[in-house]
């Protein structure tokens, strides 16, 4: 689908450059931590980052780095290297790319700064445990494991006490590893920024309820970086305030992210990082807008449990009840809510061989969505970073067929 240069310009986000600048300074600061005497902690994407910010320890995310490696199409080579090191291709490609990168300092930013400590929260998967143990041995640094029990349905008292206690242990670990005293007042401030940024991020995602939607999930995959890496910082709050304004402006002017939006779709699972543009183009050509996704909302989906007045207590629950740490029935509920909220016509599921907890149960979720909302769905298989695993013609045929079905089911003749 061709569009005029003016049309394309209109669809560009002014906030994109701002975010790139913030991320660049963040990585420069992290990479020069040795010179500035700051401590660096590597942390999992779903881990409680706020205490690190409160302690002025720079959080670094191997998963965000993995996404950058994937988006730069450098995942295949690094995963090949991991294969040479003995890691199976069936493992998570974030883990493989990161482990290989530690050895060769590859990737788009020449590798991550070496960590002074590692924070591993298993609310997103079990792979992170082994992955961080490997890195703890390699870098010879202390590792803190924040264990969040799986919440099939509710959040019981035992779990509540168990997780809350670990927050105190976590703080003690940080004090010991950094040689600094924890400042509770500063923590309250960071907590406030964190909740505020999450509220703003949710509001940004909510603008996609408008028809046409001012953004696609591919935009959300991009703008996600700050809420993942720097939630709890003022700069993040400011950034999302600006982004929200920009989105609302687009809504007011009726600017859709996809020219001639006719179909509204929901994306499930992590992005296929090395195919973002390809996917975006193919859906745009079908006049389909991926208005929402189950992934980027994971960084604001727990707001209902958060209370900035008692941040550390509520954080325990918020971090334990993330999308990937709840039962399939709860996931189905959450997906159906999104289908209704965003007015979704079809469901695109990425069966991500890298991420087992995300991909297990997808067929059940798919069936439930089809039965309860009667909307068609499609499953695409890949690894989120390892581009050697992607079959373009297979994916294209599936997406085309899905869109042909969707067109017919919406009663619009395709030919």
């Amino acid at each position, binding site marked *: 689908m061709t569009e005029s240069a003016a049309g394309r310009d209109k669809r560009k986000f002014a906030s994109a450059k701002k975010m790139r600048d913030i991320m660049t300074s963040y990585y420069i600061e992290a990479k020069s931590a040795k010179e500035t005497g700051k401590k660096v902690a590597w942390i999992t994407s779903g881990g409680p980052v706020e205490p690190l910010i409160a302690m002025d320890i720079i959080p670094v995310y191997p998963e965000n780095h993995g996404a950058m490696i994937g988006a730069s199409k450098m995942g295949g080579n690094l995963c090949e290297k991991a294969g040479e090191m003995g890691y199976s291709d069936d493992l998570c490609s974030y883990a493989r790319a990161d482990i290989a990168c530690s050895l060769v300092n590859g990737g788009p930013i020449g590798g991550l700064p070496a960590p002074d400590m590692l924070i591993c929260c298993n609310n997103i998967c079990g792979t992170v445990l082994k992955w961080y143990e490997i890195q703890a041995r390699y870098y010879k640094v202390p590792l803190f494991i924040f264990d969040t029990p799986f919440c099939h349905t509710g959040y019981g008292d035992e779990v509540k006490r168990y997780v809350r206690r670990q927050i105190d242990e976590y703080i003690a670990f940080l004090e010991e590893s950094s040689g600094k005293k924890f400042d509770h007042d500063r923590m309250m401030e960071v907590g406030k920024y964190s909740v505020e940024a999450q509220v703003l991020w949710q509001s940004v995602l909510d603008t996609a309820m408008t028809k046409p939607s001012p953004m696609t999930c591919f935009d959300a995959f991009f703008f996600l970086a700050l809420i993942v890496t720097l939630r709890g910082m003022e700069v993040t709050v400011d950034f999302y305030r600006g982004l929200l304004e920009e989105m609302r402006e687009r809504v007011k002017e009726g600017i859709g992210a996809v020219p001639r939006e006719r179909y509204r779709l929901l994306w499930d699972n992590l992005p296929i990082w090395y195919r973002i543009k390809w996917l975006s183009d193919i859906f745009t050509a079908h006049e389909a807008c991926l208005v929402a996704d189950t992934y980027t909302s994971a960084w604001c989906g727990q707001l209902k449990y958060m209370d900035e007045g008692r941040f550390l207590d509520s954080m325990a629950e918020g971090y334990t009840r993330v999308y990937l740490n709840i039962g399939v029935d709860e996931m189905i509920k959450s997906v159906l809510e999104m289908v209704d909220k965003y007015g979704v016509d079809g469901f695109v599921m990425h069966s991500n061989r890298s991420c087992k907890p995300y991909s297990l149960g997808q*067929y059940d979720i798919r069936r439930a969505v089809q039965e309860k909302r009667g909307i068609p769905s499609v499953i695409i298989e890949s690894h989120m970073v390892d581009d050697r695993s992607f079959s373009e013609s297979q994916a294209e045929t599936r997406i*085309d*067929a899905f869109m*042909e*079905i969707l067109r017919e089911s919406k009663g619009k003749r*395709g030919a």
Partner: protein
Amino acid sequence: MRGDISGRRRESPGCTVEKPGSGATAIEERDEEMYTAGIDVGSITAKAAVFKDGAVLGTKVIFTGYSAGDAGRRVYEELLGELGLDASSVSRIVSTGYGRNSVTFASKAMTEIICHGAGAHFLNPHVRSVIDVGGQDSKVIILNGEGRVSDFAMNDKCAAGTGRFLEVMARALEVDLADFGQLSLVSDEPSRISSICTVFAESEVISLISKGEQRKNIIAGIHDAVASRIAALAKRTGIRPPVMMTGGVARNIGVVKALERKLELPIEVLESAQTNGAIGAAVIAARHG
């Protein structure tokens, strides 16, 4: 159940030319005087079909070779030549298959999922599920009461369970692929091929050969392995009868029988199984004329 439906057109896998109107089945929304064509460029073969007045006038199958675009043009031109038609009399062409976007002279490209659904529905309106097994993939297509595709599933990006898998096995066994079906039917004890990977299955087959296992049993084992994978895909997608099988692999009676056993359902296979996608494309071209 195997064979075609009484009163419908039959054809050989190569080419059959029929007189317009013979065995014709009326379809809705047809344009009386219009020729339409469907071109299905697959990974191994390219197929074409010409359609007029609710009937298939002829079909043609050639090997795809290196260039999908050339194969699409060649199979179409050869079929037109055999039918004595001029390209100008064809009002609309729909291309399909993996090479669908390489057929630049087509009016529209549609996926083989929709085309196989349309082809099967045209040939037997009662069909509710289509199992299409071609050179590089297998698909299960579920049709609603109106013959529209309501759901589908494709095999993972892996050759096991596809025509290519059978080709590799035929080479390892030094048997003509065309004899595979009949040979497997006389097996009294199918070998167990446990591997789900083409490469590993090939080495498994070679080790069975070296142990002196009979060809017919190995072939029957291969068919069971292929059928298992397709049956799992079919069950996952919610297959429902009546079931039709299309695509080149439908010509292999051994796979069809093994699948019928696994699914516990009869499978209808028409002579036109291999050209079903091209027929469906021609039908769609007529419908949207």
